């Protein structure tokens, strides 16, 4: 389900034609609220959990969460995007942390 936006980190990508999460979401679900300037997911029920928004956020303000009805509180998975590599940091509900790092591009 839902990308959870940490408001203190989000500035709505002010100055860009659209925020990075609005740009990335294949379902047109991310929106920047005109009043607060913060991004939010307009319909969490329609989210595919593809994590495109989470990868795209320049402020690392978005976290993907599994709906509680399907998975327990609380685990996290954070992507850190490099130029030609990606690092994932995963913490399970017991606090066990695992990292994964690999090349995702042969060249830029």
């Amino acid at each position, binding site marked *: *389900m*839902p990308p959870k936006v940490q408001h203190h980190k989000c500035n709505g990508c002010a100055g860009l*034609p*659209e*925020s990075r999460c*609005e*740009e*990335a*979401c*294949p*379902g*047109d679900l991310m*929106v*920047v609220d*005109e009043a607060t300037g913060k991004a939010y997911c*307009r319909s*969490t*029920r*329609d*989210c*595919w*959990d*593809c*994590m*495109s928004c989470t990868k*795209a956020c320049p402020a690392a303000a978005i976290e*993907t969460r*599994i*709906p509680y*009805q*399907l*998975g*327990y*509180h*609380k*685990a*996290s*998975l954070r*992507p850190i995007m490099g130029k030609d590599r*990606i690092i*994932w940091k*995963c*913490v*399970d*509900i*017991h606090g*066990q942390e*695992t990292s*994964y790092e*690999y*090349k*995702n*591009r*042969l*060249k*830029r």
Partner: protein
Amino acid sequence: MANRPGGRRTTVTPKNLAEVRVEVVECDLLIIGGGNAGCFVAVEAAKQNPSLKVVIMEKAEIMRSGACSAGMDAINTYIPEDKTPEDLVRWSRDQVGGGPLREDLALSNARELNEAVDDLERWGLPILRDENGKIRYRGKWDISIHGEQLKPIMAEKAVESGAEVYNRVAGTGLLMDQGRCVGATGLHVRNGTFYVFRAKATVVSTGGAGTLYKSYTADSTNSGAQIWMCPYCVGSGYAMGFRQGAELSSLEQRWVATRTKDFCGPVDTISVGYKAPIINCKGEKVMSRYAHLGGDAAPRYIRANAPMEEWLVGRGPCYCDTRNMAPDKVTAMMTDYLNERPSFVLFLASRGQDVTKEPIEIYGSDPYILGGHTMGGFWVDIERMTTVPGLFAAGETAGGNPNKFVGGCAAEGKLAARGAIAYMKAAGPMPGPADPAFASQVEAEKSRVFAPLMRGAEYDGVTPREMKERLQRLMDEYAGGTSQFYRTNEERLDYALKHIAILQDQFKFLKAADLHELMEANETMDRVDVSEAVVHHLKARRETRWAGWQTRSDYPERDDKNFDCFVETRRDPKTGAVEAFTRPYEQIVSGERMKA
């Protein structure tokens, strides 16, 4: 060349049709849907003729759109040095129980396949190789990739090729001139512009149709789109063609796959990639029951249906037994998931599950209509032209040719581009935008598309979500969804058709509060229209050929005498009547078909 940003949303929407901004764009080649196939159409078109004006109408943003938006962990077909394109067609035929399938299409695709995959590697896709630099096969035909960036890699090349990409424009309908397609219309979901793309040839590559059926994970959760297919591929391409009389093929061969339970993730990754056997609650190896059909190498529909059969007879749950995996294999498997379905790794973490201690539970998915895994889609000729002249199809949208996957959809994009270019050279002039017949069809389509917005949020009508969920329940229970273990019969299908007709009549009550909801309203109408075709296909195949993909409780046996052929449907654009008919199968590649 430009990749036009969708921009931020506007909350100021038109109050009446006259206020709707209309933009007319002239081009040589229009591509509807900039996914896997669509990107390859653009690159190939520029290669064939760099002076062509190519436009991509993209509902999302091309860097992360469609079925590949989350990434990919494998390319399921790449012909090894000791095999031939004919061998690949034989394998594909075996995977669908001997067919029927379009061997002409399959063969032409297979001949193009490796070059398209090589393109991806040249463009920067990491394909895993062994210490000698040889491509590492994970099964007979499939190779492993680190495809987290697969979609951006394809999209960058499409943009570099010079195509003009109109992001956040959702296709709504085809433009027609005396029975041929001369472009398409689209709704800009951020600024509300109605686009009229006039094209000498059009390729539709909008993917398949997910979300026609209810997913069991939608029950009592906040997860209505937790499915295997990209839930934003709703079958709009099929619907656009179907409404104009284009013939659809084989929609009854639905794609149903075994997926991880409660959170839809791939299973071939574990069972094929890491040889983790499928077991039932008693620890018995499920596929050994199907040894006479090939066991672990049995046709895909048998492998997909086997765990559900175990549930049905009381031997569920079923698992992929990962308990004997070495730690380095577990890391490799998790990396595969991170490439294709990263949130599944998060799901396992949210269950606190160590897969070397607890096996991964599996279950059947909701059914999808696809032309790249199974073979539902437009009937196309060898040039990939549909039965509507000027309208081509590629990838999941083109039917008759299963087991294309990423490489095959790419290859077919190239073939469709060549077909479209050949067509446009011979096509006659099109009417100008001011031609009365042309202008009136644009006006009619604009009125149809914007009607839910014009009714307004306060209107006492139906929301797009309500209608979508009504349809999904109907299809699940009456047209062979997961809750029914994929089975249906004549009476249930008649019931489904009756209610689909009611929904179509109730399009006039759909309402939208904003542009996003207006897109959803149009998507839901597309879903209903595609579902109508699906039900007609299921009705017409009075046998059970691919249990699970297509199961008729009232005709439980395969009937080669009457149904070793393709089931087709066509809707008359004037009357709306749907006719179902058959087309013969033709064997082109030698070998025994009915081994399974």
